[in-house]
């Protein structure tokens, strides 16, 4: 397949919200706060919940495995710091509500800046077998770091039923504000490429595309340069894709680059594709080469209400409160704290919520932004303008689904394929009537899931 690097790869639908990335895009990755306590959630990702391996009062080392699970779709968790297990208690989880976490009190923790990983010059992925890579990835507890947090090992492990051909490395970062992937691409370029090669080796893919949005020319340039300097990079290509949201969505990315649709309700491997986030690729390199578990990650703390926006390398389990405090606290105008970006991020009320492996950003929005945004204004009736249909990247009919949910006609919602919605929020973003379309669709999905579970037959 011949790839036109200058082409504008895109998908139907989508929106282009103000990027707002300049708040933190030029800020280098810095070490995070000197935390005194971290709470490592036992459920950090899609899949089975881990069982704690320690009891209250046990001492743990940094990097020590503290929770694991036998299920296939799962990943262990590790302590990011050396300290003592203070308790195993409920903590707020952005998705699950109250969920149990291992709270570790630090003996002493000094924030570092990637001190213990260095890519060896003589790196060659041929030194590792596929099985070896998969096992290392599993042991390091690596999950997708772009948002959903799907265990990476499951993704890259060869599956005879679904042979993988193409590996797409997702460096789009289409959400406004967030810059952590961008910084990683600029600063950890070589590590990412090492990770890519390892993932390529493990999954047996023949071609690799690194998708980077057109608004990050620097990252494209750096990537291209790094690829040139590496051996065995000929099947790896950087593809500048069109700057729009949700370009970073797996399905949209595949559509944009390969012009293929992932079956509704299916997963990319069904059409032979694996999509990995750049941060995940970096973590793979770390895990395989240096045998280091995933205990830290880069988080962008940003938003107009944050005093010192930036990208921080923090231990997983750090509470949002600590992190915001470290960034100089918030201005008085702050009104909404989001885990993630403003499009798909989850608003949290409890600032003690610990960050997880999938948390890529903390965005604090100001009162003015909230006031200007949806749902603070009065909702008016749907005028069926069809804007939501135009922007829907999944080619759905959001207004119909939302109204079906609103008036409790779940069968109608289902017949309009509510389950195909990925909740990107484009429809709500453009709706002139301020209807919380995404919210209704989410509600409907939960409703349906409950109905299916409860009613026999």
């Amino acid at each position, binding site marked *: 397949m011949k790839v036109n690097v200058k082409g504008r790869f895109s998908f139907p639908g989508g929106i282009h919200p103000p990027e707002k990335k300049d708040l933190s895009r030029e800020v280098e990755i810095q070490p995070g706060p000197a935390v005194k306590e971290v709470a490592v959630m036992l459920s950090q990702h899609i899949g089975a919940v881990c069982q704690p391996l320690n009891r209250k009062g046990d001492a743990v080392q940094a990097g020590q495995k503290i929770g694991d699970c036998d299920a296939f779709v799962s990943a262990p968790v590790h302590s990011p710091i050396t300290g003592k297990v203070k308790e195993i208690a409920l903590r707020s989880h952005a998705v699950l509500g109250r969920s149990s976490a291992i709270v570790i009190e630090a003996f002493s923790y000094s924030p570092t800046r990637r001190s213990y990983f260095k890519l060896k010059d003589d790196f060659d992925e041929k030194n590792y077998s596929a099985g070896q890579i998969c096992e290392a990835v599993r042991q390091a507890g690596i999950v997708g770091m772009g948002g959903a947090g799907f265990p990476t090992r499951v993704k890259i492990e060869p599956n005879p039923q679904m042979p993988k051909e193409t590996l797409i490395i997702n460096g789009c970062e289409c959400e406004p504000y967030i810059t952590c992937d961008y910084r990683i691409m600029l600063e950890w370029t070589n590590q990412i490429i090492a990770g890519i090669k390892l993932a390529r080796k493990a999954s047996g893919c023949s071609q690799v595309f690194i998708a980077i949005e057109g608004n990050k020319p620097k990252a494209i340039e750096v990537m291209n340069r790094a690829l040139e300097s590496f051996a065995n990079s000929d099947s790896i290509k950087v593809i500048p894709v069109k700057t729009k949201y949700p370009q970073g969505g797996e399905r949209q990315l595949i559509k944009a680059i390969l012009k293929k649709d992932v079956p509704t309700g299916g997963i990319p491997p069904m059409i032979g594709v694996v999509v990995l986030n750049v941060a995940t690729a970096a973590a793979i390199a770390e895990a395989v080469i240096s045998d280091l578990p995933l205990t830290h990650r880069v988080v962008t703390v940003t938003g107009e209400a944050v005093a010192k926006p930036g990208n921080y390398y923090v231990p997983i389990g750090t509470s949002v409160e600590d992190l915001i405090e470290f960034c100089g606290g918030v201005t008085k105008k702050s009104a909404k704290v989001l885990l993630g970006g403003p499009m798909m991020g989850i608003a949290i009320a409890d600032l003690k919520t610990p960050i997880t492996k999938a948390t890529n950003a903390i965005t604090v929005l100001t009162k003015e932004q909230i006031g200007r945004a949806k749902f603070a204004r009065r909702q008016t009736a749907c005028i069926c303008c069809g804007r939501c249909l135009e922007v829907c990247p999944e080619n759905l009919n959001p207004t119909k689904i939302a*109204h079906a949910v609103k008036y409790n006609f779940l069968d109608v919602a289902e017949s309009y394929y509510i389950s195909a919605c990925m909740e990107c929020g484009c429809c709500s973003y453009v709706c002139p009537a301020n209807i919380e379309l995404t919210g209704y669709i989410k509600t409907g999905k939960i409703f349906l899931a409950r109905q299916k579970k409860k009613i026999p037959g």
Partner: protein
Amino acid sequence: MDTLNILLMGFISIVIINNLVFTKFLGICPYLGVSGRIDMAFGMGLAVTFVVTLSGTLTWMIDNWILMKLGLEVTRYICFILVIAGAVQLVEMYMRKFFPSLYESFGIFLPLITTNCAILGLCLFINLWGINSLLEAVVLSFGAGIGFTMAICIMAGIRENLNLADVPECLKGAPITLITAGILTLAFMGFAGMIR
């Protein structure tokens, strides 16, 4: 050619211009009752089409070949209704036996086809209009059924949409259906005077 023209014009006329529901107020009960969902409405429409074609043809034959010959026009109504009721019951039994799922979804409305004024009304109108060829009677009866199906399907589509709207509580159901039907009759006025 001429006959064909008459038949075609008659058909279009009864489907659109002289639509039984919109201009003659016939078949309003099932129109209000079964127009909740499109699939149900379509099924009902087909059932009515079938029965109306059957009974329109039969009554025309009985009327022209027996009653008029014997000078027994006075028993016309009673004969018509006998034919219709008989035909409906036959259809009902047949469906129950061979299409049980279809039968279930119609529920109470199948026997109510007997009392669907559209059917008797059409038989009477065929007589009133002085249709004097069997073929024309068949076409008109069939057209009437199609017209009814069309009307009820349009209404069902609208009502499915209205389910997802904030219709005033007191107007939900029959009232809003009637008002919608009223506006529909306004719209169908546009076809007036096209034929005949």
